C-alpha cells in the first residue's frame, strides 16, 4: 500500500510509533502534489517545499521533546482558501482578494496547527463559496480525480479532489448549503458538516453567517471524527460557537447499530433522482439494517420549499458580508476611478465573478423595499417550518438517510450555463444548513461511468456521535471509502 492510501489516523499512528517521521510524511505529500496539481488544480496556493518541511521538522522536534500533541500530529493537511492563514495568501478563489495575506489565523487553523497539523496549501473552491462545481474560481476550475473531464463538485471542490487524489490526508472545507458534503460525494471521500456552531467561524471569510460551518473531508468517518475533535469547541471570538458536550467522538465509534432508528424521507427519493444513485443509497440502508438498524420510510413534504428558502436567505446574508469588499481596506482596487462611488463600483464590478454578482443582485432584491416581506421574511418563516419538520422527524428517528446529490459529478462546463438548474441540484444538502443539523457524506457506490456516489446521514443537533458511528459501521462492512482514482488507473493499465 502506498503512503497516500492510508487514512489520516493510520498515518498518524505510524508517526506516533516512530515508524514514519513527519518529514517523511510531508515529503510524500509534496511528491504527490507535484504529480497531481497540474492535472486536477486542487490548490490555489501550494506552500513551497521548504515551508512545508520546516513545519514538519517543528512537529518532529515537539514530539521528540515529549509533547502529546494529537493522534494526527505530523499528518499533512490542507485548508480551503476561505480560511484565514497568517502569512499565507487567502483568496476565496476571487480576483478581489488575489493578494490578501491575513495577519491572523482562523481559530480552526490555529487549533490544527497546535495539534501538529502540517499545512500544505490552500484549496481551490467556487468564488466566495458560491457555486456547486468549483468552476466559478478565478484561478481556474478544479478537476475530478476520478475523471478529469468532470467537476469535483463545490464549493469545497479542491478539498475533496486533494483528498481523493491522495495529496493530503485530510482537508478542511466550509459548508453553507452542501459545500463539504456534495464534493465529498462527487469525489468518493467522507465529508462532515457538523452542527451549526460546533466549529468557530472566526477567520472563515463569511458567505452566509447563519448557515456557514467548517468541517473535515477525509477518507474515513474515523478520520472525520478525529479532525472534528481537534477543531471544535466554544470560542470567545465567535458568539455562535457552542459547547458541544460530545465527550470523545472517536470513542463513540463502536460499530453497534442495534435498534438504531433510521428514517428515509420519501420525498428525497422521488422525481429528479438518478436511478443509479437511488439504488446505491437504498443499498446503503440495507448495510445498516444488517447491523441491526431499523429502517423505515416516512413523508417529508417540506422538501419542495428548501431550495428557494435557502437561496433567499443565503443571498440576503451574502450581500451584507460582501459589502466589505470595496477596494479600500484589503484586496484588489480597480484603476481609473473618478470618485469614491466610482471606485466602489469599478472595483466590485471588475473584482467579482458572474455568480457572485448574480447572488448580490438577488440578495439585494429580496431585501429591497416592497419585496422584503414577500421573499426574505417569508423565507425566515418557512425556515421555522423546516426546522419544526426536522424536530418532529427526530422524535421518531435517530438518524435520517438520503442521497447527497441527485446525480454523480457533472461534466465540466455543463452546469455553468443554467444557474437555476445548479441551485436545484443542492436540494438534499441545503435543508440541513437551514435547520443547523449535522450531515455526513460517505461513499456508497459507483455509477456506470465509474464516478462515485454518496449517501448522506443526518443527525439531530449535536448528534455527531450517532452520525459518525453509523458511517464508521458502514465503512467496517464496505470498502468504497478505500478505493481511489489512482488505484483504478493502475488497475486499468
Amino acid at each position, binding site marked *: 500500500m502506498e503512503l497516500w492510501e492510508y487514512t489520516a489516523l493510520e498515518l498518524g499512528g505510524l508517526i506516533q510509533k516512530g515508524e514514519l517521521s513527519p518529514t517523511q510524511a510531508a515529503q510524500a505529500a509534496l511528491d504527490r502534489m507535484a504529480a497531481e496539481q497540474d492535472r486536477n488544480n486542487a490548490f490555489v496556493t501550494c506552500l513551497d517545499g521548504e515551508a512545508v518541511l520546516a513545519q514538519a521538522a517543528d512537529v518532529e522536534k515537539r514530539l521528540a521533546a515529549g509533547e502529546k500533541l494529537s493522534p494526527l500530529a505530523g499528518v499533512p493537511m490542507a485548508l480551503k482558501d476561505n480560511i484565514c492563514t497568517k502569512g499565507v495568501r487567502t483568496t476565496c478563489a476571487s480576483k478581489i482578494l488575489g493578494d*490578501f*495575506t*491575513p*495577519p*491572523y489565523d482562523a481559530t480552526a487553523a490555529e487549533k490544527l496547527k497546535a495539534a501538529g497539523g502540517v499545512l500544505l496549501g490552500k484549496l481551490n473552491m467556487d468564488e466566495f463559496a458560491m457555486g456547486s462545481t468549483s468552476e466559478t474560481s478565478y484561478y481556474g476550475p478544479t478537476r475530478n480525480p476520478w475523471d478529469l473531464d468532470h467537476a469535483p463538485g463545490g464549493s469545497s471542490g479542491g478539498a475533496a479532489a486533494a483528498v481523493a487524489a491522495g495529496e493530503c490526508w485530510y482537508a478542511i472545507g466550509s459548508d453553507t448549503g452542501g459545500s463539504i458534503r456534495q464534493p465529498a460525494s462527487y469525489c468518493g471521500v467522507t465529508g462532515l458538516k457538523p452542527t*451549526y*456552531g460546533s466549529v468557530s467561524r472566526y477567520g472563515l471569510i463569511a458567505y452566509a453567517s*447563519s448557515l456557514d460551518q467548517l468541517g473535515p473531508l477525509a477518507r474515513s468517518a474515523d478520520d472525520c471524527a478525529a479532525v472534528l475533535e481537534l477543531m471544535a469547541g466554544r470560542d*470567545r471570538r465567535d458568539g*455562535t460557537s*457552542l459547547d458541544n458536550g460530545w465527550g470523545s467522538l472517536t470513542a463513540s465509534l463502536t460499530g453497534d447499530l442495534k435498534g438504531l432508528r433510521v428514517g428515509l424521507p420519501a420525498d428525497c427519493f422521488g422525481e429528479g433522482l438518478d436511478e443509479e444513485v437511488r439504488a446505491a443509497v437504498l443499498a446503503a440502508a440495507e448495510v445498516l439494517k444488517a447491523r441491526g438498524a431499523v429502517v423505515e420510510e416516512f413523508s417529508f413534504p417540506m422538501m*419542495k420549499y428548501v431550495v*428557494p*428558502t435557502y*437561496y*433567499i436567505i443565503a443571498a440576503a446574508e451574502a*450581500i451584507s458580508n460582501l459589502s466589505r469588499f*470595496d477596494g*479600500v*481596506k*484589503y*484586496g*484588489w*482596487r480597480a484603476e481609473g*476611478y*473618478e*470618485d*469614491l*462611488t466610482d*471606485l*466602489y*463600483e469599478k472595483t*466590485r*464590478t471588475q473584482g*467579482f465573478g*458572474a455568480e457572485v*454578482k*448574480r447572488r*448580490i*443582485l*438577488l440578495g*439585494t*432584491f429580496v431585501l*429591497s423595499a416592497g419585496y422584503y416581506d414577500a*421573499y426574505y421574511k*417569508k*423565507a*425566515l*418563516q*418557512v*425556515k*421555522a*417550518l423546516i*426546522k419544526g419538520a426536522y424536530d418532529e422527524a427526530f422524535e421518531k428517528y435517530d438518524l435520517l438517510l438520503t442521497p447527497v446529490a441527485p446525480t454523480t459529478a457533472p461534466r465540466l462546463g455543463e452546469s455553468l450555463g443554467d*444557474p437555476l438548474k445548479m*441551485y436545484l441540484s443542492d436540494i438534499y444538502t441545503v435543508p440541513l444548513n*437551514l*435547520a*443547523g443539523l449535522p450531515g455526513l457524506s460517505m461513499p456508497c457506490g459507483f455509477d456506470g461511468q465509474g464516478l462515485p456516489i454518496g449517501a448522506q446521514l443526518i443527525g439531530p*443537533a449535536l448528534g455527531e456521535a450517532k452520525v459518525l458511528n453509523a458511517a464508521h459501521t458502514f465503512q467496517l462492512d464496505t470498502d468504497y471509502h478505500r478505493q481511489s482514482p489512482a488505484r483504478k488507473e493502475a488497475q486499468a493499465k
Partner: protein
Amino acid sequence: MKITEEMVDYVSILSRLKLPQEEKERMTGELEQILVYMDVLDGLDTSGVEPMSHVFPLKNVLRPDEVVPSGDRAALLANAPVPDEEAFLVPKTVE
C-alpha cells in the same frame, strides 16, 4: 414576478455594481427565472409563523470588560491597496 432592466439598475445602485449592458440583459433574464421559481413559497401558508433568524436558542451573556490587544495597525494596513502610515486612503469625498 416580472423583472425589468430598470429593477436591475436599481438593485445595482444599491449593490455598488455597474454592469455592462450585455451582462445586465443576461442577469435580468436569469434573475426573473430564479425569482419565478422562488414564488413556490407562496403556496405555503405561513400566517402566524414567527420568522426564525437563528436556529438555536442563544441568549446574550455578559463577560468582564477586559482590555486585550487588537490587530496591529501596520499589519492590517499592509493589506490595503493604498494606505499611508496610519490610514486607508480613498479619493476626496467632501469638498
